[in-house]
């Protein structure tokens, strides 16, 4: 991480120390640190092919990763001419920008900012004010975009100003209030002291598209398809922001942020300007969020208050936490994974495949290849078929409800899970609550008792999925986000690529 900097500082000393340590290999060298000398011996490495791959990947420089990632992303619109795929790619690129910005505030500054999405909205609205029919102002993009960034940073600074002495929960409450304020003002802003400012719930329409050197970039191509050029623009902005933030993180300010996050008191007695550092990270995050907002407004040529509410806040936080708060590649990975996952969950066929794959992988991960695995798999299969045939034998209407899509998985599910033609109203809440309760009971049991209970619980999960959740993709998406967060807290609290936590005891 700090390679270049370190070398620069240590070079003049290298000679001096070498002289004192080169007393021959056999005699115990004066000033030689055994821990450092034998450091390499203690490192455990993976063997075999996997170890070689890992060692090779370790030396790939960061810019090569970034270039590969961006190149693959650019190929997406080429590989698929579906407007849907391109639109999703644009959304994910926006998510990546938002996650990068939130990472500055939460991951580096250590400030729990629950108003982050408001800055995204402020950027979107500010652009609409500066370049749309609403006020009749039509600033060209290269003027309005920098203006919006400045507006975002200034608002971030102002919100941070009264909150700079707050930490943790208190800061979270104040910023959450700011988000609520933003939503209230924009929703009711069609009659603000007698003026129509924000267009209220109807939003602002007819925002200008991006104009580059006098050429307007239409948001839609002929035939109403989404213009992939916008995705390339956001991707280019993403690369610039990513590289710029990387330099910030490796600067003295970046390190000061991290030390502030680790121990504010220690940072203060080192003489760091704690308050201005906090404000700076707030303003940085807000500016990036506002910048992302402009592109969303351009693309849809409109802006509505409801696009900036809590679900989006939760989604962005999940991305940052899943990828690893504090790690730039981590939060980008988180944005791509969660963004893709949420889209896949929209489609019942895809989400069914995902669900059963997750169950299989989960069971495989928990038991590895063991007798218990065989018992669980065989037990669940048998349990399902027995339950299905008993139900089918008593009344065919009990099992004929499924008409889903999803290829082989759907066929299997139709012959295995009980899906009644008509589901009584009480079934959904009762089965869902008992699934959660039984999952909690599972954590209290051990050994074979746990396995005995696991089999019906797995079947119940499939039942709930087929009968309740698949029919309601919207809440299901958020339930899945919650499950991911819980699983992370248990198995990998630092996120996928997060920094190691080092607790000082």
């Amino acid at each position, binding site marked *: 991480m700090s390679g270049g900097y370190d070398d620069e500082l*240590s070079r003049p000393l290298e000679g001096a120390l070498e002289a004192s340590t080169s007393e021959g290999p056999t005699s115990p060298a004066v000033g030689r640190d055994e821990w450092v000398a034998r450091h390499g011996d203690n490192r455990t490495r993976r063997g075999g092919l996997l170890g070689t791959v890992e060692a090779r990947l370790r030396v790939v420089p960061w810019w090569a990763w970034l270039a590969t990632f961006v190149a693959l992303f650019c190929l997406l619109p080429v590989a698929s001419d579906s407007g849907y795929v391109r639109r999703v790619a644009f959304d994910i690129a926006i998510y990546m920008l938002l996650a990068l910005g939130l990472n500055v505030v939460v991951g580096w500054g250590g400030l729990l900012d629950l108003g982050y999405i408001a800055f995204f909205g402020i950027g979107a609205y500010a652009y609409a004010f500066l370049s749309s029919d609403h006020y009749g102002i039509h600033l060209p993009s290269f003027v309005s975009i920098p203006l919006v960034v400045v507006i975002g940073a200034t608002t971030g600074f102002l919100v941070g100003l009264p909150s700079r002495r707050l930490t943790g929960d208190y800061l979270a409450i104040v910023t959450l209030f700011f988000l609520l304020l933003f939503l209230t003002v924009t929703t009711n802003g069609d009659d603000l002291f007698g003026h129509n400012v924000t267009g209220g719930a109807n939003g602002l329409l007819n925002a200008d598209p991006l104009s580059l050197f006098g050429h307007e970039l239409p948001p839609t191509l002929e035939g109403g398809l989404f213009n992939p050029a916008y995705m390339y623009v956001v991707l280019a902005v993403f690369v610039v922001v990513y590289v710029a933030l990387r330099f910030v993180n490796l600067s*003295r300010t970046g*390190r000061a942020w991290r030390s502030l996050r*680790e121990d504010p008191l*220690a940072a203060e007695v*080192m*003489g760091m300007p704690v308050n201005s550092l906090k404000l700076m990270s707030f303003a940085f995050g807000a500016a990036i969020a506002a910048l992302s907002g402009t592109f969303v407004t351009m693309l849809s040529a409109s802006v509505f208050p409801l696009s900036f509410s809590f679900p989006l806040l939760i989604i962005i936080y999940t991305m940052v936490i899943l990828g690893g708060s504090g790690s730039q590649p981590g939060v980008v990975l988180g944005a791509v994974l969660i963004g893709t996952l949420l889209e896949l969950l929209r489609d019942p066929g895809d989400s069914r495949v995902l669900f059963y794959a997750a169950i299989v992988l989960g069971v495989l991960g928990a038991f590895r290849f063991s007798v218990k695995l065989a018992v669980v798999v065989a037990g669940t299969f048998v349990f399902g078929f027995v339950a299905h045939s008993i139900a089918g034998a008593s009344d065919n209407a009990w099992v004929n409800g499924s008409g889903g899509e999803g290829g082989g998985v759907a066929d299997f599910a139709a012959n295995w899970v009980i899906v009644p033609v008509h589901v009584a109203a009480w079934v959904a809440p009762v089965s869902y609550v008992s699934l959660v309760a039984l999952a909690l009971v599972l954590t209290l049991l051990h050994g074979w008792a746990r396995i005995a209970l696991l089999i019906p619980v797995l079947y119940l999960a499939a039942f709930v999925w087929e009968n309740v959740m698949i029919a309601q993709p919207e809440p299901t998406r958020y339930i899945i986000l919650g499950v991911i967060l819980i699983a992370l807290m248990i198995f990998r609290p630092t996120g996928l690529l997060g920094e190691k936590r*080092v607790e000082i005891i």
Partner: protein
Amino acid sequence: MSANGTPMLELEGINTYYGQIHILQDENIVVNEGELVCLLGGNASGKSTTLKTILGLVRPRTGTVRLAGEDVTQLPTAHRIKRGLAIVPENRRLFGPMTVLENLEMGAYLRPKADLKAEFERVYELFPLLYERRTQLAGTMSGGEQQMVAMGRALMSQPKMLLMDEPSMGLAPILVEKSFEIIKHVNESGVGMLVVEQNANVSLSIADRGYVLSTGRVVLEGKAADLLQNEELRKAYLGR
């Protein structure tokens, strides 16, 4: 030993309150240039509050804090650090997931970047181990090593007055002795020091002078050698 008469740090008539509770009661402490002074006292005697008052983390209701003759009572912490104050905090308080090098650099946060190299060299010369471990995460070091990082970090700002809060806390007896040797060594290089300790024996054996605090008042002060002979103190802190 190297002490001469100019006061580096002066506390004059300090009264500090936490809400309505009167913590420091008319406290007067002087540390001269290059002097090593220890501040002794049991639990809840006001040692930490004294340090916080010196640093500006709490403000005294009445009284004056002077650094090299200048009244700093109303100045914020960062300005005091800029004027040559530094602290090795209790429990060291290192930045755990950051490397030794980065920890040291944070100590010199207020120094101009051009001076950094010289500061690093000075600290590495004092603690060669830190140079060898510069890429190690500070949180993964042993207690004694962490103490060295904490001292190195404080020295990075080239302080004229160094505060140490319980340097012996959590260290094995042999390391306590070693860390006091280092303290003595740093002091001999001309840095004035105020060492807050519960371990009266070791700290008095290296100090020039000492103060004893009890429930917020200075109850005893004098030359370290005299204090070591003091019957009352021996009973109270040395247990014999």
